[in-house]
């Protein structure tokens, strides 16, 4: 039967995959995908702690739901920013976006 440590190791590996995507990808959309992976890893942690560390309280699952909601907000605003940058600068590669104002 998997213990708390198994879930924490899984979430650490998922978090580092997301981190790798965020620091090495050039495409803004792919960077947002990495951020989604990192948020998922944090959610696995929250729900695992809810079950194994404080089963009487529902705070872990409640906060996982809030993180999912805020991740949806972040994806909508982030992708809108990528779209706006593409409209004015005609690139989605973040290492080519080097002006603050057009």
């Amino acid at each position, binding site marked *: 039967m998997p213990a708390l440590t198994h879930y924490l190791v899984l979430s650490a590996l998922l978090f580092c*995959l997301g981190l790798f995507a965020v620091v090495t990808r050039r495409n803004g959309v792919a960077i947002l995908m990495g951020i989604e992976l990192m948020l998922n890893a944090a959610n696995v942690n929250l729900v695992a702690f809810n079950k194994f560390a404080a089963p009487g309280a*529902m705070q872990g699952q409640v906060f996982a739901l809030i993180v999912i909601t805020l991740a949806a907000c972040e994806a909508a605003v982030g992708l809108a920013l990528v779209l706006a940058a593409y409209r004015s600068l005609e690139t989605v590669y973040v290492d080519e976006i080097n002006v603050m104002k057009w």
Partner: protein
Amino acid sequence: MSGEAIAFYVLAAVTLGSGVVVVTSPNVVHSAVALVPTFLGVTGIYVLLSAEFVAVIQVLIYAGAITVLILFVIMLTEGGTGIRARQRNEQGAIGAAVAAAMAGLLIAVAVRTPWARLPGTLPTYTPGAIGQSFLGPNLLVFEGTSVVLLVSLVGAIVIARKEE
């Protein structure tokens, strides 16, 4: 090895395997589609952790909505999806070293810490308990999240709108 352990390892393999595809694929569309099995693997992990309501919300929002949103933006920014375009920056080696160091640190902490366990048991029907929690002790968080949702909706429309 119990059935739960087998399910955990299969779900972890699905999650991490498709996560590697998301991170390394040279084609952004493949990355976006590989997000779906990653999210579904995490959904299975939630079911194993007896968080059924979070699992259903994960399928609806992540596997359903966010993936479709990402695919739409890839379609609208077709200048960025060319397979011939370089998708990685020059910091691949440093990024991999940082991610591996971070993974080692987190795993060491997770394995070495003696996690305490508070008394109590999970309620048998967690959606009801979550609803009670949202309209009881967590009401302020609930309302704050709804305001953030509204603001981000307006902000996304304002940012993505075409200039007149």
